């Protein structure tokens, strides 16, 4: 089993994660999840999501991965029962109390051990296996030989993060946020202190922010050594980010499995991923210990790029007009790219734009305005249009 696992922090992202190529998605409910400040999902919304995913033959995992204080257990039993009735495929837990409770309730869903447990060895995996855990999300610090040893010794399903933001600390071992802001990092309130500047009275400011994780160069090797699930980080991310990243990894994995992946394609995918996140990225721990090259040393001016230009709402084969919702400013003459789950990425120059009343205009400047573009190539609903920055040779 090779699974591409996508984050969804809000309802809007579900469609894009599933249709752009994820085999499974993970999300948080409105309680007990480590992204307490994402929109998250009510139980009816989880149910709706599970139905949609199962219709597509895909899976839904629900994060129940806070570190519980005694006051947090109220309603946990009912919540797990509800998730079981809804038919979620797994929960992601780090607290032994949740793992044992799921076992005691004889829930049908699987239990996956969260990366919060920072698991790096076979003995620890076996400990959790005895408690019914079916899959372990390894610590992001796991190296190639650790993964091989764990697979060999335990046979457990292994899930590894392959893309997205990194904690500086081992997951679950950090309370910088608690100390600085009283916000509890292990209950979903992380204030990301590791992305702040620390003043050093004797030298330049200390920054400890890692570059993002990006495993493009090692996906084939990870498949070879038996990693089962390839996880993308980012439950707080936009539909554009989710769609772009998932589609890149979907194509990458498929091309690896079909033996059609080229070096040029790899380079192109890396460029697209880095541009999409506005951050540099690196493989981090897999093949070596990260050095200064895998970190940032200044406060990054995170200027959001305006690459995401529009969301396709419809396409008329007869008139060759694509009906779009604008997401960022574009104009006649811009070089753009369309991409989608069933649309091979292609580049085109915008020649004609029309407003909703089919009046010719030259720019689409209003956020979320609807408009038409002349486009000879067929596109599909929920394909996306972005600024052309890179192209595949």
């Amino acid at each position: 089993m090779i699974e591409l696992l996508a984050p969804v922090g809000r309802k809007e992202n579900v469609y894009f994660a599933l249709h752009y190529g994820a085999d499974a998605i993970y999300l948080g409910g409105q309680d007990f999840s480590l992204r307490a400040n994402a929109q998250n999902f009510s139980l009816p919304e989880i149910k709706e999501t599970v139905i949609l995913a199962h219709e597509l033959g895909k899976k839904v995992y629900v994060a129940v991965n806070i570190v519980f204080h005694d006051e947090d257990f109220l309603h946990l039993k009912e919540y797990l029962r509800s998730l079981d009735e809804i038919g979620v495929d797994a929960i992601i837990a780090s607290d032994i109390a949740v793992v044992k409770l799921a076992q005691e309730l004889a829930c049908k869903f699987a239990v996956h051990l969260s990366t919060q447990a920072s698991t790096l060895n076979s003995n620890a995996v076996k400990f959790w296996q005895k408690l019914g855990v079916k899959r372990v999300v390894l610590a992001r610090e796991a190296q190639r030989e650790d993964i091989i040893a764990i697979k060999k010794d335990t046979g457990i399903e292994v899930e590894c993060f392959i893309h997205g933001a990194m904690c500086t600390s081992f997951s679950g071992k950090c309370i910088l946020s608690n100390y600085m802001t009283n916000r509890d990092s292990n209950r979903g309130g992380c204030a990301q202190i590791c992305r702040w500047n620390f003043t050093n009275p004797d030298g330049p400011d200390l920054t400890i922010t890692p570059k993002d994780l990006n495993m493009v160069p090692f996906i084939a090797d990870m498949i070879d050594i038996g990693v089962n699930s390839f996880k993308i980080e980012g439950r707080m991310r936009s539909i554009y980010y989710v769609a772009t990243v998932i589609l890149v990894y979907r194509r990458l994995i498929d091309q690896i499995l079909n033996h059609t992946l080229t070096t040029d394609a790899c380079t192109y995918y890396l460029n697209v991923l880095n541009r999409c996140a506005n951050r540099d990225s690196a493989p981090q721990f897999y093949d070596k210990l990260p050095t200064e090259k895998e970190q940032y040393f200044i406060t990054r001016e995170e200027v959001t790029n305006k690459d995401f230009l529009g969301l396709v709402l419809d396409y008329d084969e007869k008139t060759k007009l694509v009906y779009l919702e604008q997401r960022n400013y574009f104009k006649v003459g811009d070089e753009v790219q369309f991409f989608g789950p069933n649309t091979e990425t292609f580049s085109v120059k915008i020649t004609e734009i029309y407003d909703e009343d089919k009046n010719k205009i030259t720019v689409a400047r209003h956020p979320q305005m609807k408009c038409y573009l002349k486009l000879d190539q067929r596109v599909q609903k929920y394909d996306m249009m972005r600024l052309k920055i890179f192209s595949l040779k």
Partner: protein
Amino acid sequence: MEGQKLVCITNKEIINDLRDRKDIIKLYPLKSFCVGYELEFTIDEIDDFVLVNRILTNQDLKNLQMILTRAKIKGIVFDDLGVLEVVKDLKITKILMLNHLGNNVISLNYYLEYVDSVIISTDITEEEIAYILNNCHKKLVLPVFTLVSLMYSRRQLLTNYANHYHLAKNNKMRVNIKEKYFQIYENDYGTVFYPQKYYCFENYQSYPHVLYYFYNPIFLKREEILKVLADDWQDLPTTSFLLKQKTIYKIKDGDLND
């Protein structure tokens, strides 16, 4: 003996002072298996309890197993659950130090099925500690005086900093964000961030069901450690940390800019 002080040996000069003290158990950070300690000991130097406070790989566990075959230790304090299998047949006291992950009675009671005791979290309030002590199936280890590990990283953050700015490498650094101060220590394994002030549970004697009282006087001098062990910490920077202040995690809209 219950009610003893479990004291991490963070300064070599203190060993002689503690040699004949029946009220004290000495906890030695084990060389190559710890993070955040300036002073570490080989297994041959350890005659009391041993500390293994970091996450371990399969290779680390193999190495640990080999080292422990010649050990003359009386107990072990460890963070990684993988150690359980390594020490299961050893007739020593086994104490789990969960490093932020054991904040409730239910979880602690499950873990207590595998070990003799658990060190209570420093992330919880005094009320929560009282509830835990009263409801756990075994007696627990209560932190009294310690520098709390705010985070630890597998990265060598100070080495990376020195390399990037072409500075001489230093294993220790003091930094701050506004009025919050940090002490950072890096060893070959990784980097730990500590606060400037020592977590101090002044009220510790009010609570029953304690197996040991935990003291972790990182970076202190001999004289300071001796005073701390006599509960005299007035001259040191201390804090009640989260003992009197609950953390929050659902942020109201207005709080998001902090």
